[in-house]
C-alpha cells in the first residue's frame, strides 16, 4: 500500500447525482482521491464513468452532492476553473493537434514569451528545450522539437498530453480510457508513465474497463455500475475476477465466462 494515501484526500466526491432530463446517470456516487495514488475507475459502457469524471473536471455540474478540493467545497463553472485549480483531464482523442509540432502542442495555450524591443515573442528556444527534456524523461525519442504530433503513435500522444498536464502543475490527472485504443507495447508505455506521475505525488484517476490494465498500476479500485458505486477496494484485497464480476453487475457474466473458457 502506498503510504502517501494516508494523507488527507485531495478530492472528495460526496453523494454525486447527475440527472439528464429523466435519465439518472449518477445516483449518488462517493469517492475520495488521495495524492500520489492511482485510483482506477472501472465500469462497463454506460456505467456512468464519463459523466462522473466530467463532473470532476468541470464539464458537468452535479444535480446533487458536493465536491471538496483540498478540503474546500468547489463549484466549477467550466473546465478552465478545474484546470486552474489543478485538475487536468487528458481525453483520448482531444489531446493533441496532429498537424502541429510537439513543442507547439506542448505549450499550446501556455506559450512562453520573451520581449525583444518591447514586443512579446514566442520563446521558441525555451519551448524547444523544455519539450525535449520532458519527452526524454518520458522515454519518447523525438527527432526534434519540430516533429509533428501526427508522426507519433497513439501511446506517445497520450504520454505527451500527460507530460504536458504534469508540467503545467496538475495536482490531479484524470485519464479517460488512455489505453483503450492502444497496442500492447504502447499500453505498457502509458501505464509506466502513469506510474511515474503517481510517484511525483500527483493523484491519478485512471478510467478503464480493462481489469488487467487497472491491476497493473492501480492502488485503489472503484467500480461503477448503472450509476452507483459498488465500493472502493484496496490493492491486494481484491482479485481481478471479482472486479470483472462487479463491473458486469454480478452473475450474468459467470455463464458467459463458462462458455468462453474464462478468457474474458
Amino acid at each position, binding site marked *: 500500500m502506498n503510504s502517501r494515501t494516508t494523507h488527507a484526500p485531495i478530492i472528495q466526491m460526496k453523494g454525486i447525482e447527475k440527472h439528464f432530463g429523466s435519465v439518472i446517470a449518477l445516483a449518488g456516487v462517493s469517492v475520495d482521491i488521495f495524492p500520489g495514488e492511482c485510483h482506477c475507475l472501472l465500469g462497463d459502457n454506460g456505467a456512468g464513468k464519463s459523466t462522473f469524471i466530467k463532473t470532476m473536471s468541470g464539464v458537468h455540474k452535479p444535480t446533487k452532492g458536493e465536491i471538496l478540493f483540498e478540503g474546500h467545497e468547489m463549484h466549477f463553472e467550466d*473546465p*478552465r476553473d478545474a*484546470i486552474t485549480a489543478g485538475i487536468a483531464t487528458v*481525453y483520448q482523442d*482531444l*489531446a*493533441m*493537434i*496532429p*498537424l*502541429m509540432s510537439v513543442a*507547439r502542442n506542448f*505549450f*499550446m*495555450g*501556455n*506559450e512562453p*514569451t520573451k520581449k525583444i524591443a518591447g514586443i*512579446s*515573442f*514566442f520563446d*521558441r528556444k525555451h519551448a524547444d528545450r523544455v519539450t525535449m527534456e520532458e*519527452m*526524454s524523461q*518520458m*522515454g*519518447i*525519442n523525438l*527527432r526534434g522539437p519540430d516533429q*509533428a504530433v*501526427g*508522426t*507519433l503513435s497513439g501511446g506517445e500522444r497520450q504520454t505527451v498530453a500527460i507530460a504536458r498536464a504534469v508540467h503545467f502543475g496538475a495536482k490531479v490527472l484524470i485519464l479517460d480510457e488512455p489505453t483503450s485504443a492502444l497496442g500492447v507495447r504502447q499500453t*505498457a*508505455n502509458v*501505464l*509506466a508513465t*502513469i*506510474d*511515474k506521475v503517481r510517484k511525483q505525488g500527483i493523484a491519478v484517476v485512471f478510467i478503464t474497463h480493462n481489469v488487467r490494465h487497472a491491476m*497493473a*498500476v492501480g492502488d485503489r479500485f472503484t467500480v461503477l455500475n448503472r450509476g452507483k458505486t459498488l465500493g472502493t477496494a484496496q490493492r491486494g484485497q481484491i482479485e481481478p475476477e471479482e472486479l470483472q464480476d462487479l463491473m458486469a453487475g454480478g452473475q450474468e457474466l459467470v455463464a458467459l465466462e463458462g462458455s468462453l473458457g474464462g478468457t474474458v
Partner: protein
Amino acid sequence: MSETTQPKPVADERVKEMSSLRRALIRPELGGICGTIAVFAFFLLFAHDSGMFNSQGVLNWSTVSAQFMIIAVGACLLMIAGEFDLSVGSMIGFAGMMIAIFSVTLGWPVWLAILVAFVLCLAIGALNGVIVVRTGLPSFIVTLATLFILRGFTIYFPQLLENKTIIGGIREQAEGDWLAPFFGGKILTGFFQFLGEHDLIATFERGSRQGEPVVDGIPMLIVWAILLIIFGHVLLTKTKFGNWIFASGGDAQAARYVGVPVNRVKILMFTFTAFCATVFATCQVMEFGSAGADRGLLKEFEAIIAVVIGGALLTGGYGSVLGAALGALIFGVVQQGLFFAGVESSLFRVFLGVILLLAVILNTYIRRIITGER
C-alpha cells in the same frame, strides 16, 4: 509490471534518420520554391529578350505580384486559422468606392475618406467573423453572402449618388494630402534617378521627361506587400498568437480545451483579411485616380489559389505566409510573363490550372512527410 517496463529514451529503429539536406528541404514552402524556380526558368528561356527582365518589365510583374501578395497574406492567415473569406474581392470594390464617394461626392479630405473606409471595412470583416463563430455556420456560406451584399452596394451607391458606376477625380482630390502618398506614392525615387543618370536602367529618350528614368521609384503597393508579408510571417511563426492561429485551425475544440481563445483569433483574422483588402483597394484607387464598381472581381479566388500553391491546407491548421507570397509571385509572373512571351492570353488559365494542380500534389506529398498524415 510498471517497474520492468520503464522505457528509456533509446533510438527507435523504426524512425528513419533524415539527412540534414532533406530536413532543410522538407518544409511547407518547398512547393512554392520549386514553382518559383520553374516559372522563372521557363520565362528566362522563352521571354528573356521580350523586355520582361528590364526595369519596366520587372516593375510590371512585381506590381501585379504585389497585388496578389497583399490579399494572399490575409487569406493565408485566415485559412490557417481554419476559415475562408470569399468577400475579399467585393471588399476591394466596396472599399475603393467608399473612398471615392467620401472624397469626391461628399468632398471630404482624402485622408479622412481613407480612414473612414478602413474603419468601415474592418468592422465588416469583424462582423463576418462574429457571425461565423456565433452561428457555427461554414465561413464559406457566410462570406458568400457578404460577397453579394458588398458587391450590390458597390454598384448601387455610385449609381444613386452620381448616376454612374465609375467615380474619377480622386487624384486631383488627393493633391497635397498627407495620407494618400502612403498608398499611391513611390519610394527610392532618388536612387532610381541615380541609376538612370548612370545608364544602369532605361531612361526616356525624348519628350518632356527626357533623361528621367522610365521606372522612377518603387510603388507603395510593393512596399505594403513586403511589410505585410514580414508582419504575417513573424506573427505566425514567432509569436504566441501565431501558435493560437495554428491551434484554432488545427482542432478548435482541442485548442479551446487548453485555453486558446479560438473565437477571438478567428474574428481577428477575418478583420485582418479585411484590412489587407482595404490596403489593396486604397493603393489601386490612388494609382488609377478612380474607383469602379467592378474592381476586385474574382480576387478572393486568386488569393486562395496563391495560398494553396504556397502550401497551406484548405481545411486549416497548416501553412506558411512565405509560401503564400511565393504563390502570389508565381501567379503574377505567369500572368504577365505570358503576355511578354506573346502567348495567347486565354492560355493563361490553362497554365494556372496546371500549376495549381502540380503545386497541390507536391504540397500534399510534402505535408504527409512532415505531419505523418496517412
